[in-house]
């Protein structure tokens, strides 16, 4: 326990020094400068006036059940848009509906647990992207509405599943295809698109810091006294950035390696940064695809605008700073246990199939 306390103390000290220092990144060697487009490690932000703007959030709900004869997935995704005025929300719309119906998919029998989970998570991600795509194509066209910012819950990064199951691989290919189509479509329509990772367990920033710190120490010898290697080795991004960032500040943007189709990768690349919205909450990780045809200044400006748009919809509590459209979409998309049970009961009543029975454990005529 003492070790934890010591490391924590050192971490706070290191972060405090680094935060005050706010290193200038332009002086880094060229191979490190390609990892970011920012000039400084931390940037102070000013929340934007979002009056008249429409900001949307997209989230999906997912649940699965292993039944006697079938393994089923239940999905739904929803987009929420709010148009703001100085004091209140002028209008909130939902797509496809305020309470979208559940989508049920039956998986093949004989999938391994890993494949079953992979299939579920890819299909959930596809459902969310499909809603996002429809919002930008159909919803915008049909209703002549504009969306200034569309926030999606989670990360766009879905790793290629390690499987021999063609169906799962095809779903993965389909996901990547929908993702590229979405990014291009959003770019064409002038819709800012960003993914919000609420609980990141990544250490990409920490790793990058590990590479940058030696160069900073050269010019700031008082950092010598701190065993920064040990600190960084024992830290995750969120952990470190909680101390590094103050409210209304963001970290430098860093390049996020992600394998995408060649043609898409020539035009867009995935970038991440951390944004602290509430003083006593961990920062959000924001991910976005940026056009490679933009200049460095244009890319910085885009990140700055995006951050300053996210701030006002995330500042409502000192200890919780998730953007409101994501909170709303999450609440609407969440699939509740009672909902699943009611649906299964309905299916059993309709089809009277043994395959829809739950496990024997769940059917016990007593509660022990």
């Amino acid at each position, binding site marked *: 326990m003492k070790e934890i306390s010591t490391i924590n103390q050192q971490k706070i000290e290191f972060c405090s020094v680094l935060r005050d220092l706010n290193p200038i990144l332009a002086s880094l060697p060229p191979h490190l400068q390609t990892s970011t487009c920012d000039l400084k490690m931390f940037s102070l932000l000013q*929340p934007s006036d979002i009056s008249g703007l429409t900001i949307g959030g997209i989230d999906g709900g997912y649940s699965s059940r292993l039944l006697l004869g079938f393994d089923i997935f239940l999905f739904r995704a929803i987009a*929420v848009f*709010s148009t*703001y*005025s*100085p*004091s*209140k*929300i002028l209008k*909130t719309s939902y797509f496809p509906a*305020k309470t979208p119906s559940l989508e049920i998919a039956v998986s093949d029998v004989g999938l391994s647990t890993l494949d079953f989970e992979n299939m579920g998570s890819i299909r959930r991600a596809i459902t969310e992207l499909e809603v996002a795509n429809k919002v930008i194509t159909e919803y915008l066209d049909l209703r002549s509405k504009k969306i200034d910012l569309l926030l999606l819950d989670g990360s766009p990064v879905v790793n290629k599943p390690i499987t021999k199951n063609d169906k799962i691989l095809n779903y993965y290919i389909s996901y990547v295809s929908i993702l590229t189509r979405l990014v291009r479509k959003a770019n064409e329509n002038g819709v800012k698109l960003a993914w919000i990772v609420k609980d990141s367990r990544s250490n990409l920033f920490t790793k990058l810091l590990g590479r940058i710190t030696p160069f900073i120490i050269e010019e700031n010898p008082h950092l010598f006294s701190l065993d920064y290697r040990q600190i960084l080795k024992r830290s995750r991004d969120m952990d470190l950035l909680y101390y590094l960032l103050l409210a209304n500040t963001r970290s430098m943007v860093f390049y996020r390696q992600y394998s995408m189709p060649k043609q898409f990768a020539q035009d867009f690349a995935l970038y991440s940064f951390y944004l602290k919205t*509430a*003083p006593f909450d961990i920062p959000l990780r924001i991910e976005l695809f940026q056009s490679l045809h933009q200049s460095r200044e244009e890319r910085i400006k885009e990140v700055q605008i995006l951050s300053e748009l996210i701030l*006002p*919809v995330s*500042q*409502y*509590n*000192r*200890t919780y700073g998730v953007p*409101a459209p994501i*909170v*709303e979409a999450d*609440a609407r998309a969440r699939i509740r246990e009672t909902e699943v049970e009611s649906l299964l009961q309905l299916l059993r009543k309709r089809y009277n199939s043994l395959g829809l029975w739950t496990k024997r454990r769940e059917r016990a005529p007593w509660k022990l």
Partner: protein
Amino acid sequence: MSNIGIVISTPTSPSLEIIEIIIEKNAMHKIERGQFLCIPLTENIQIIAIVTNIRKTNAYYETFDPNVQEIASRNYEGIFPTGEWENTVAELKPLGQVEINTKAISRVKVPVSPGTRAKVASPQLLSTFLGLDDSGLYLGNLSSNNVRIKLNISKLLRKHLAILAISGAGKSYATSILLEELYNYGKLGILVIDPHGEYTQILPEIEKDPRVQIINSSFISIGVPSLTAWQLSEFMPEISIVQARVLNDVIESVKKEKNEEYALQDLIYYLDNSETINSRTKDALIGWLLSLQRTFLFSNQSNPSLDEIIEPGQITIVDLSGIQNIRSRQIITHYLIGNLYYKRMRGEIPPILFIIEEAHQFCPETSRSISKRIIETIAREGRKFYASLCLISQRPVNMSVTALSQCNSNLIMRIRNPYDQDFIGRISEGIDRSALKSLPDLEIGEALIVGEAINYPTFLKIRTRRFRSKDHLPDLEEKAAEYKERWSKNRY
């Protein structure tokens, strides 16, 4: 009828005790507390439930953090679509069920199913459920369901009615509505004991109607020759049996001597000159008779004649406003009600309703009252002889429990005093806690009808009077200004 809401499933609802419904957005303006809703149990059975509470829920505010306002650059509603999460939940109390084909009413035996749609109960269904009578007395309206509360006359009056409320809540107005209805019904004999002369003001249009008779207290006299010693002794509750026997002998002697033409003065004179009567008895009887004589209510003839004041459909208002002495009022009340009751027992007059205003003055629970015994007797036994009471009071707690508890129907208006509320709760069967709690909040003219007259305690708005009142009663400021003007003129 359009849908109001849908029955939801919670740990306690739907049950035999409570049903919770989520109100549909477009039905918000259609629901209110006290409203009757119907929910189908089967195709042929409707559950009738009353709205007991309405609450709003909003998930965004369930664990509201006060820090929210502290940090938010704009208010909470400016960031979250909180309005989209607001739900209105109505709590209903199932009252009973109605079988549509047979119109049979019974208690609820099985709860309704979650997901069932609730509607506003139709006037027809509600009329069946509440046991209303299309040809009954129309006292008011059920404001929430657009239903006319028409009460069966026998159910309302046969086992007596009590109208209870604080001063100014609309008791007299409600009574005047009852009188209007009874006037139109036209078959009962009605005697109104009116201590403040209110009803002569309230019902001026029927004042000149031969079916309405107003007896001014100054014209009332009790014929001593028509009274036996035992009847006379009822006006003197302290008299002993021995003294009553002596009085009887005195009356018999005076009757022979004066040939049925005598007054109290003659009895006193006879007593005073008697040499055979024990002096202590003599003095006591003389004292009591003198006290009766000082009321100026007794003479050698009765006026008006009791044979003339009650006829079918006739309303007789006894205006006691000219008499300030409560004992005198009680004597008149006892005399009129007692004699008319015995006439009714003998079938000499039609079925009769005695309406007694300020009934706590005439049959109090604790203090002595000359008229208490006869009122309690009618309360207990009047039903058998079709003699009914309508007791009106602003202090039910001071009223005879015997009389009030025999009133099987109660029309209760605003009651603020907790002792009175508690008392009403104890004497009135069928009134539940929630109804009792709402009594202080009733508006003027709003009433709770409970008991034999209706199948379920129901709040109603007393209907508007058809007859116009003579003048509006001046308020305090008008009255004070009027007096000052008169006083100034007289002074200078």
